[in-house]
């Protein structure tokens, strides 16, 4: 197929061009239709009709030139560059941290990060979601064996998009700062970091395809038309108590039993098997809070004083970045009573430095935080995370 450029000399020639277009059997496709004499008309002509069209133009003294010799070649070239740029997207240097991404984009990016930092980062699969999506964890390790570890997760509640986005930025930051930032280097020289960025992939996919406000998993509940369990009420800590719901239709439904959700049991089993997790931070949004156990009961945690002091420090360092104000305290004092949470479970399994953060904002945009706030949010959360990790490093137990 070729694209011809024709300039009609006068009204009569213009009429001829329009007539040419009317002849269906020639299948002439105007890219730039005949408008006025003196103005170019561009027409794509299928290969088999080229001879006929060119003869027609020549016979009528209509001047033309060949603008595109081979349309197919151009199409192929374009396809090549598109595939190439999509591959480049997966390279971490061109990844746009200031926008929200799909699961596929995040998973591809994780693979690229591991490929770019083979001595530091590996992408592990720790299980499968209800709908059989892989549950991936990035392992940051400089080697050693039996090292203490930090567990980080984002995206356990699907609609809290700022968390997955912050997770990606933060994982990138960890990889980039090793060997440069002394704190990151000290941490990674002695401990491993496990980072699950999309802790609830089924829910996340659902927020992108169907309901932006979906929170829970997507598991089917026997005897109910309502779907999903709140993965942050499904842990075996005060399970089923006040601060969770036994109604499958509720957003805080705890599930039929503790760890019934694959997304939860995969993480719980991983942490228990590892045996050396010393700090755990689970990211949520929104409310701007930094909290420690307990959520399920009012009784203060045995390490409350230390946890509170560390929280105060982290919140101060967070505020220093962009002025964002966080409140802090135990979950039950700061936000509300919540039973069966990740953080309470981890704490009761011996992970002393167990924290949960509620990121920006405080309700103006809520879950629909504009992408422009992703990087500032991640930037300010960073020193708070470092404070917690560094404290775990400096206070081994």
């Amino acid at each position, binding site marked *: 197929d070729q694209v011809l450029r024709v300039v009609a000399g006068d009204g009569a020639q213009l009429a001829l061009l329009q007539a040419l277009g009317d002849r269906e059997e020639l299948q002439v496709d105007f890219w730039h239709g005949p408008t006025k004499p003196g103005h170019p008309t561009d027409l794509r002509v299928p290969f088999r009709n080229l001879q006929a069209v060119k003869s027609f133009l020549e016979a009528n003294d209509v001047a033309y030139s060949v603008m595109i010799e081979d349309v197919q070649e151009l199409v192929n070239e374009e396809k090549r560059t598109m595939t190439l740029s999509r591959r480049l997207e997966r390279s971490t240097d061109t990844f746009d941290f200031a926008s929200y991404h799909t699961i596929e984009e995040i998973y591809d990016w994780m693979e690229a990060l591991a490929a770019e930092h083979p001595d530091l980062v590996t992408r592990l699969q720790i299980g499968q979601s209800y709908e059989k999506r892989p549950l991936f964890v990035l392992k940051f390790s400089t080697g050693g064996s039996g090292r203490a570890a930090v567990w980080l997760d984002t995206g356990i509640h699907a609609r809290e998009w700022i968390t997955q986005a912050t997770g990606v930025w933060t994982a990138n930051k960890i990889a980039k700062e090793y060997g440069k930032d002394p704190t990151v280097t000290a941490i990674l020289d002695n401990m491993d970091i496990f980072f699950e960025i999309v802790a609830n992939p089924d829910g996340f996919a659902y927020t992108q395809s169907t309901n*932006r*406000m979906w929170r829970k998993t997507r598991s089917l509940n026997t005897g109910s038309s*309502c779907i999903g369990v709140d993965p942050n009420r499904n842990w075996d800590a005060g399970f089923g108590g006040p*601060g969770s719901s036994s109604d499958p239709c509720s*957003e805080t439904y705890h599930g039929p039993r503790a760890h019934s959700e694959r997304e939860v049991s995969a993480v719980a089993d991983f942490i228990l098997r590892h045996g050396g997790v010393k700090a755990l931070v689970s990211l949520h949004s929104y409310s701007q809070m930094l909290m420690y156990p307990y959520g399920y009961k009012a009784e203060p945690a045995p390490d409350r004083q230390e946890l509170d002091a560390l929280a105060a420090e982290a919140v101060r360092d967070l505020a220093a970045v962009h002025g964002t104000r966080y409140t802090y305290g135990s979950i039950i004092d700061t936000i509300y009573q919540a039973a069966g949470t990740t953080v309470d479970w981890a704490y009761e399994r011996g992970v002393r430095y167990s924290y949960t953060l509620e990121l920006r904002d405080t309700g103006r*945009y*809520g879950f*629909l935080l504009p*992408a422009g706030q992703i990087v500032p949010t991640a930037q300010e959360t960073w020193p708070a995370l470092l404070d917690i990790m560094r404290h775990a490093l400096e206070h081994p137990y």
Partner: protein
Amino acid sequence: VPGVGHKYYLQFTTEDYRSRDSAGSCLATVLFEQGNSPPAVTISCVDTKDEKQIQEEDNKFYQKIKQQTKPIMANDIPDSYGNIEPALEPVWALAVVGSSKIMWEKSTENLSYSMAQVKSAKQWIRQDDFVEFDYTVLLHEIPTQEMISCHLRVIWLPGHPMKVKHFCASENQWFEETSGMESGSAAGILQEKEQNF
């Protein structure tokens, strides 16, 4: 307050919703009497924002909406990515004010709300100067984490108190079944009920 209920003493600052500039401060008491809703409220505020400036901004808002030649119709404000088209900002702002009335009425000692999203906005052109909008808004309920769908009708003219009518779906079972569907169908059901409201 033994035998009566719980009384809260509040001191808080206010800020302009759009510019985030400080707008003043307030002192309030809120008394939740056992079994009584809504609570008894006393409040006194100091406004630092200039009355004339407020009027000017209201008028600018009003003009922006009045300038439209066709009735404004829009969905998902903000969109999934948190974007609000500049032209739709006044529409969103009116929904925020209207929703605050719903939240004022629904809030209890244990339940609080934020406006999560405007699912749909539809303007009704009126013969008089008033601006009228029908909204479907999602209210985020804490601590239940539920998204409550409410139908909101707002009638407004600068210098006049805003008239707000609302109807919220209270059954989370119902909402759950329609959460994946077009807001059009939900609004259809709510429209009917509105006539009797």
